[in-house]
């Protein structure tokens, strides 16, 4: 199974939802209603499936808002995201910045990026 398939399976098991509800563009918190305890369980599930260390602060973009505090113009905010979350690319950072008003920005594709990045670091 590919990374998306594994993550989707974890999400459907933990949140008791249908597989059709999960796409890479699905918001984990806004759309699926994941709560803190669900995210903790998801970390453990992803760690077990992919054998990579999951840092909850990173994968769930927990420090996103604090890292953007005081960011000025001229791409500073985007650069801060790229520095804080090395698994997020420039395009996604731009999307996130345009989406902050809507609530928690975390999407399934961010989880996928994180897992790929960690697996790469592990030399997998």
């Amino acid at each position: 199974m590919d990374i998306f398939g594994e993550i989707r399976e974890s999400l459907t098991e933990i949140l008791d939802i249908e597989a059709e509800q999960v796409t890479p563009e699905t918001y984990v918190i806004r759309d699926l209603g994941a709560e803190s305890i669900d995210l903790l369980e998801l970390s453990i599930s992803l760690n077990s499936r992919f054998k990579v260390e999951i840092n909850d602060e990173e994968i769930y973009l927990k420090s996103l808002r604090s890292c953007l505090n005081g960011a000025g113009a001229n791409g500073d905010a985007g650069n801060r995201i790229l520095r804080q979350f090395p698994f997020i690319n420039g395009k996604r950072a731009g999307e996130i910045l345009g989406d902050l008003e809507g609530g928690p920005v975390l999407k399934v594709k961010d989880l996928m990026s994180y897992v790929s990045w960690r697996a790469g670091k592990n030399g997998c």
Partner: protein
Amino acid sequence: MKLEFKGNRVLIAGGSCEMALCVAGLLMGEGLHPLLTWRSEQGRGKIEDSLKQFEGRFDTAHMDFSIPESVERLFSQMEEGPDYLVDFAQGDYESLVGSADAVLTSRYFTENVSTRADLIRRAARAMLKKRQGRMVFISSAAAWRSNPGQGFYAAAKLASEALYRSVGVEMAGRGITSVTLRPGYVDSGRGGRYIEAHDGAVARTPIGRAIAPGEVAQAVLFFLSDSAAAFNAVEICMDGGLTAVK
């Protein structure tokens, strides 16, 4: 009363104290498999001597709150995480607050609160995989009513109680619960030394005697059992009435 247990593997932190050894014996009598942690070779020897009649039915492992990596190593040694955590681990630091050493104070809280938080975190995550787990923290009546010199001990116990209580609040929906037991004057180890050094301590206890380590162990066994599942995120005093009197 016949006690039932959903799980089997019990991690006993601070496993070389007399109360922990009593708990381990009772658990093995119920068919459970304890893993007792030790800080020194002396502690390891004490466990192995005390429990030699149970050879092959328990394990031991090194864990020392003053060596944070030892907590990580402990969990990497366990193939399956624990079903139960019983936490007797606690360092000593008796000092009046006004005369305390700042460096020792900081180290004491790092070891007995921060490193314990890592122990709890790892146990909680292992239990969450199985959606089942029970934690019993052995605090002290001193957490609530400390004598002079026990301020840091009480503060570390209260902070740790809060961590265990929070696990019970946050994770009960996933089958993981916690209880804190606050024994009063127990006639063993640190408690025994305290009783010896402080005349009249036991005399003020309404039951007129110290608590026996075996009594604490029986209570721990009950709190680990399925029968006690509704006790969650709570601190229970077992002090013979000491903290109820003036």
